[in-house]
């Protein structure tokens, strides 16, 4: 199998399955934060950020939820109607990582509500992805291009 995450397709239901687990865990973080269990909330958010980082840097195809989907869920489903590129969900993992890691760092510095707010924001994104099939790359990436945040060298076009 090719190692390039861009060239190898994935079952589009796999990231949505993963997002549902993430969303539930983020609700638990928010519950703990609101209940005053600050350390527990910060610990769980750190674990979620690490999982997002795994997906973002190792590629979504190597994410544990993706492997769980492949091993336990996909054999029970009909084949997917369509295979999607791994790039967009990997980007979504990166966005999740940025939001949750910001919450962890601000939380470590004792910024009030940072953990809860980061968990709530990441939950909304995970929920939209899981339930509605919202594609954050479709919405956000072109805006990043417009503000000049994304600079792809001309040479990369030739690929």
């Amino acid at each position: 199998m090719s190692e390039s995450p861009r060239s190898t397709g994935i079952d589009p239901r796999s990231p949505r399955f993963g997002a549902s687990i993430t969303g539930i865990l983020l609700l638990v973080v928010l519950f703990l934060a609101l209940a005053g269990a600050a350390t527990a909330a910060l610990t769980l958010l750190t674990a979620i950020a690490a999982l997002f980082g795994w997906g973002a840097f190792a590629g979504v195809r190597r994410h544990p939820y993706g492997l769980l989907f492949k091993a336990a869920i996909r054999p029970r489903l009909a084949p997917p109607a369509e295979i999607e590129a791994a790039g967009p969900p990997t980007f979504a993992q990166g966005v999740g990582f940025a939001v949750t890691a910001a919450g962890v760092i601000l939380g470590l510095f004792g910024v009030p509500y940072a953990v809860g707010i980061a968990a709530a924001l990441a939950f909304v994104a995970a929920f939209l992805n899981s339930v509605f099939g919202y594609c954050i790359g479709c919405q956000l990436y072109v805006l990043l291009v417009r503000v000049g945040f994304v600079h792809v060298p001309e040479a990369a076009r030739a690929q």
Partner: protein
Amino acid sequence: MNPLAILAALAALVAVATLLGLIWRVRQGKVTAGSGETITAADLASDAPLGASATLVQFSAELCSRCPGTRRMLSTLAADRPGVEFLDVDLTHRADMANRFNIMQTPTTFILDRSGRIRARIGGVPNRDSITEQLNDLTGRNNVRIAA
């Protein structure tokens, strides 16, 4: 906070997220009026000419999981109609073009008439029937199905 109040807050968050999702879904593929500006193939950095009776222009970018499916649908619709062309414009390296046309999401589709005027704009994954309807208007083809 007591557990009951926390659960109420979590339920409110889920409700807000659901509302956002429903709004997003309703707006996906909605056909709105185009700017009315007249553009050429050169404005889209396209080597291919515009269609003789209409052109479907899809704006795509990297990391857009909905773009390939939209490309397949629109190119098929265009191929079925003489005089209708399909152009796919990759904005990944064209921030200038994304700014010029104020593209807020990918895919975004423009429907141009025979003179290159932007008649309609569709944000998100377009609906096949709405595109067909627009093309029928522009190419003068009657849609027999709605005669009843």
